[in-house]
């Protein structure tokens, strides 16, 4: 089945030039958007609509750092999804729980500066984890094509990083909601 990279005819890499992908998405939308096919025969409208949906879905998957990693792993036969991945590192789990507690406290105290401090730290971490994932994918894809390190080790490292990214993203989502409320 065609995945997001296939749909947009892109090289399967984690480190994507999102600006270029967005431009490509726009170009394809110009061809496929239903408004372009208004008044055309139904067969044509259906064909355009289903492809427009696929292209939109592909762009949505690739611009999300978590889903982009999932697409790449699935491509390499690694099952993803929160119930199918190994349980996260206990130390990370503990750390994230503490961070979330700190956030909950700041929220209860309506302490916006504290919320923002926590967010800044987490944004730095978000960037770091994404860099690590980009590097990890390069190594993993090298490893699968016959290198020295065991691909399973690389894979598990990637899954750990992906798990961490999920925590980080969820945290940042919560920050956003708090900011809307308190801001």
């Amino acid at each position: 089945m065609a995945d997001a990279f296939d749909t947009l005819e892109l090289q399967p890499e984690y480190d994507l030039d999102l600006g270029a992908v967005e431009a490509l998405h726009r170009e394809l939308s110009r061809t496929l958007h239903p408004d372009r096919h208004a008044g055309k025969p139904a067969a044509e409208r259906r064909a355009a609509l289903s492809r427009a949906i696929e292209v939109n879905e592909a762009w949505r998957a690739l611009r999300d750092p978590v889903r982009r990693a999932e697409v790449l792993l699935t491509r390499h036969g690694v099952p993803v999804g929160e119930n199918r991945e190994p349980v996260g590192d206990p130390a990370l789990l503990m750390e994230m729980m503490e961070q979330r507690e700190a956030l909950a406290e700041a929220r209860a105290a309506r302490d916006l500066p504290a919320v923002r401090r926590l967010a800044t730290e987490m944004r730095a971490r978000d960037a770091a984890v994404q860099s690590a994932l980009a590097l990890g994918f390069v190594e993993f894809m090298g490893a699968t094509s016959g290198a020295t390190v065991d691909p399973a080790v690389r894979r598990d490292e990637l899954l750990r990083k992906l798990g961490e990214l999920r925590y980080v993203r969820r945290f940042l989502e919560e920050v956003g909601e708090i900011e809307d409320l308190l801001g």
Partner: protein
Amino acid sequence: MLLDIYDPKAPPKPIGIDLGTTNSIVAHVRDGRPVALTTCDGTALLPSIVYYGDHGAVVVGASARSYATRAPTRTIASVKRFVGRGMDDPQIRLLGAYRFVEPASAEAARTVRFDVGERSVSPVEVSADILRSLKKSAEDQLKAIGGVVITVPAYFDDAQRQATKDAGRLAGLEVLRLLNEPTAAALAYGLETRSNGLFAVFDLGGGTFDITILVLDDGVFQVRSTGGDSALGGDDMDRLIADRILVAMGFAAAGVSAGGGEAVDAPPAEVVSLALESARRVKHALTEVTESLLELPRRGGGTAEFRLTRDELDALILPLLERTGRACRRALRDAGVEPSAIDGVILVGGSTRMPRVRSYVQEIFGQEPLGDIDPDLVVACGAAVQAALLVNQSDEVLLLDVLPLSLGVETMGGGVDRVLPRNTTIPAGAKSVFTTFADDQTGFEIHVVQGERELAQDCRSLARFTLKGIPPMSAGMARLEVHFYVDENNLLAVRAVELTTGIEQKIEVVPSYGLTDEQIEDMLIDAIDHGDEDLEARRLADGRVEGQRILLATDKALATDPDLLATEERAAVDRAAAALREAIAGARKASTIQGAIAELDRATHDWAGRRMDRAMKAAIAGKRLGDVAAEVQGAAGVDAHVAAHEIARAGRPPPGGS
């Protein structure tokens, strides 16, 4: 459904309609520029008020307003706030002079009905009466009108959109498209001023609030995020003022009591109507002056004085403005931008005329809103532009809009499994897999909801359906795949398949709130005194036009992509096309033509897919080539863009003029 008779001498002209809470406007593109048409009131703005008199008399617009205090329950204003809503909606309990029909069943309670004396009307019917009046004005001026683009608040949910579309069809209009109001405003503004950049559209109307963040880039209007409240607007300000007026008149503050009279000290509908109308006048006056004084009849005789200053009004409406502020911050966050990154704030809606609204917007975005836009007309103008673009098949403008509210399915515990998040670019699709939870479970209920809340009961219920006929299996074995499709109008369709058996069910999301095609047709026959025969004659004429159009498109496709057809496929297409040609020439019934159209549709289905794949590949290849060219050419690209824009502008006027 195309109900206008085709007249080859005068090509039907596409129109755009802003169906507003307070006022409605119809516009069309003349000589390349959108202009609002004069309504039956002699002005561009038609008050969205309908009076239902005796013997089926219907009065729309300013003349209907004069009945508001005399016959308040027969005069429906702000009907938009009830569109697509049920009797359980909090809207029903707000201060107003409406008399609602007590629903006879749970089914009936899904749609509000107004008791207007002789009969009762639904919000869809009232909206259709407003649209019919606009349609008539447009026909008087343009002779034949073609398709229509109707605008809706970006934050309207599926049920509200469905109901709006139904109203259009009921009014006998061919609804080409539902367009989000902020996007329409941006379209009109962007094309007029040739602006590029990141814009915020702050749209505070009579009953709805939208905030949309979008990018304008050489004819591309890409919505980044949208947010709002489909029950927040000038009406709410009027109610706050009316509450004070009622107290001044000697009544208890109405608060949340309805105008129906069930509360102990509820003022009569005539008084409520007078208070609301006075409130509106006070509000308008305070945009120009800093203090307003009113004399009103006092309960039990004599007169009462009511005084309100602008400062008092500002304080009164601040809680409402803070609700807009929260939505703005969320939209900015969803778009991933800081307020300082916004190049311009476009104000839409009559409520944005108020000084405090303007200063509040300025506080949020840290900049003065753009001043050269008519907040009342810009949405209808955008709708007219979009209608012309659709009919002329222009490819220089592209509108990429988003889903305003997340779509999900209720889970076992009453939670929501989010299938498509808000701000997903449309058209969009997603699927979700569910498993059975009990042994030998043969049916599966799916409850589709829309909204951001954690619990399904707090979200908007869109549809409930049951997939039946699953063969008995142990729990967790049967796997149900639910597909969601959201089209360019933000309308939803759902399909469910049981994966082990392949049992499939297509779900019409329509019947829960909207109307079926049959219902619309029945109502049309009743409404326009034409009867069955006339309708059949129209359908036959419409079928011929549609068939011709399809044959033309098929011929064009045969000329460009004949290589994508296998020999036997080509033969099938030629056969089906010949049959359609024959049907157009000789058929006496519309169904014959429709049958031939369906046959040609089947014959061209796979081919259409292959042609679209080819177009996609060409677009991808073209993009790559373009990127290389852009790097080499450098500054020459700017000229090309400007030239492309000239073409876009030149291409906009519809043929014919008027």
